[in-house]
């Protein structure tokens, strides 16, 4: 029997901490099975080889440089399927915070005033990858969830539609048996944030910061009112919404 060529996977990384690639690498129990079904041809965090021939591209990180825009467009051209891997890539993530200030000011703040004279520090306002190319699937989160990565990968390999989550974190939170953070005199953005994370932050005593971005059709006005009722000023509400959501709440 003729050996069928395995689908080729590539992982790319732009502006980010590469933590989402680490989540992929942490799928130790499943990777042997996955590696028998696919060929990984690019994965900077894990191997040296590189190739421009691939079927599925997982793209991590947000876009903050002109050079990244060119590279990203090339990836779109080469790949049949593009997956945004993690918050930076899918919504712009934390990196979008810098968009609140003029780029010159950001450069000066981070690299010192000499940076303004050097080409090396050229920077653009942060963008999610779908502001530049068409994205087929999204893996949200800071970092991504292992479960969702595996679900997406197995679904693509089987040719079925991946399971996408479009309910707010409150659902995952109740399913985890948590007491609502608002009951505990804290506030969060769970009611408008896309779940799929099993409400891990609240389960371990923190709050929802909104790392997975907004649900489709969020009622942000209603939640802003809730936050104000719980003592937040309008400015504090905006800060809460924009920690992970600047790119999506205020188009850059």
């Amino acid at each position, binding site marked *: 029997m003729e050996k069928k060529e395995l689908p080729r996977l590539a992982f790319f990384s732009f502006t980010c901490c590469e933590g989402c690639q680490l989540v992929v690498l942490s799928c130790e129990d*499943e990777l042997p*099975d996955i590696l028998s079904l696919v060929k990984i041809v690019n994965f900077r965090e894990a191997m040296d080889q590189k190739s421009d021939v691939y079927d599925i591209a997982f793209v991590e990180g947000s876009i903050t440089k002109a050079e990244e825009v060119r590279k990203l467009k090339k990836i779109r051209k080469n790949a049949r399927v593009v997956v945004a891997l993690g918050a930076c890539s899918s919504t712009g993530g934390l990196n979008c915070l810098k968009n609140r200030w003029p780029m010159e000011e950001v450069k000066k703040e981070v690299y010192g005033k000499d940076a303004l004279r050097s080409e090396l520090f050229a920077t653009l306002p942060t963008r999610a990858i779908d502001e530049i190319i068409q994205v087929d699937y999204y893996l949200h989160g800071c970092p991504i969830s292992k479960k969702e990565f595996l679900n997406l990968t197995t679904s693509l390999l089987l040719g079925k539609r991946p399971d996408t989550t479009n*309910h*707010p974190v409150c*659902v995952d939170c109740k*399913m985890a048996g948590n*007491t*609502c953070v608002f009951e505990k005199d804290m506030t969060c953005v769970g009611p*408008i944030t896309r779940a799929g994370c099993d409400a891990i932050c609240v389960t371990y005593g923190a709050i929802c910061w909104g790392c997975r971005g907004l649900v489709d059709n969020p009622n942000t006005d209603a939640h802003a009112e*809730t936050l104000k009722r719980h003592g937040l000023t309008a400015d504090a509400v905006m800060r809460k919404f924009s920690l992970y959501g600047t790119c999506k709440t205020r188009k850059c």
Partner: protein
Amino acid sequence: MKNIEFFRYLPGAAKAKSASGLKKLVNTLLKEHRVYGTVKRDGFPVYAEIADASELELFSTPTHLSAKQFLFPPRETLLRYDIRRHLHEAVIESERQAIIGLHPCDIHAIALMDEVWAYGRPDANYLSRREKTLIVGADCMPDEYCFCKSLGTMNVNDGFDIFLHKIKKGFLVRTASDKGEEIIAGLKLREAKPYEVKELEERERLREASFKARLDALPKDLPEVFASSNESTVWERIGSICTGCGSCNTVCPTCYCFDIKDEVKASLSEGERVRVWDGCTLEDFAKVAGGHDFRKTRAERLRHRFNRKFRYLTDRFGMPFCVGCGRCSRACLVKINITEVTNELIRESNKRRP
């Protein structure tokens, strides 16, 4: 006066500390059951597994989440398969369990769930779990959201195995099943004294007078109220502030909607079919193939949920599917309150009447 023969006396406080009768009861249950009960966590009463009797604490106020998770888990495996080996097997995970601290509304809710899961094609997973479940009820005091009195679910005479009524020094115990009777008989409790039963009656009078929330119509009139309220502006108004977080569904002891998903292992040949909670107030609930959506707006979704509680399921099962626990109102961050909304519709409906 209540029939004194129904009650026996169990000494001890609401916390199952040393030497209390409650501790004896929990220890007896622990021998043959996985035991769940109310405990205090982050300052709030919640249901949790009880490994040691001392963890249990009975509360007069309701838990935020209902106890449905023990009969209808947020996530459960229904089927396991391996296509390479042409294998598939149904999975029914159930074990003997006892739930301690259920208030009358919660016990009524379980009775409704029993109806639902046995209706049509009986659900083997729920029924198997239910059959192995022992229910120990405890009485309560209404908080600002409780309105069981308006729905006839304030008291229970069956649907539990053991029921604990708190009195000043200890509990008066009732049983409503052979299993419950056997366990209580094993504890060799003395009969209740007339003054103890009198104290219980006094407490019940106080409880009945303590309700702050109420419905302004009888349960039997509610289906008609909702049937005539489709065009009410109430729906638009609450729809505009709803975030669609689904908490009213997830905390409700009688909401039983679920989704079924196939989860494939990385080998692509093995997998599991799982059932997870779903809720009619969630954006994607009524979306079907082709992108069609039967209930496109939050207003329509809320209207549907209210109708499920007071009309659609009442038509099918003959009783309201709300037990008045008030959990949905308590959990709602935008303060959509089930009694206030219903009373507004009742007022509108009364006005429409000739």
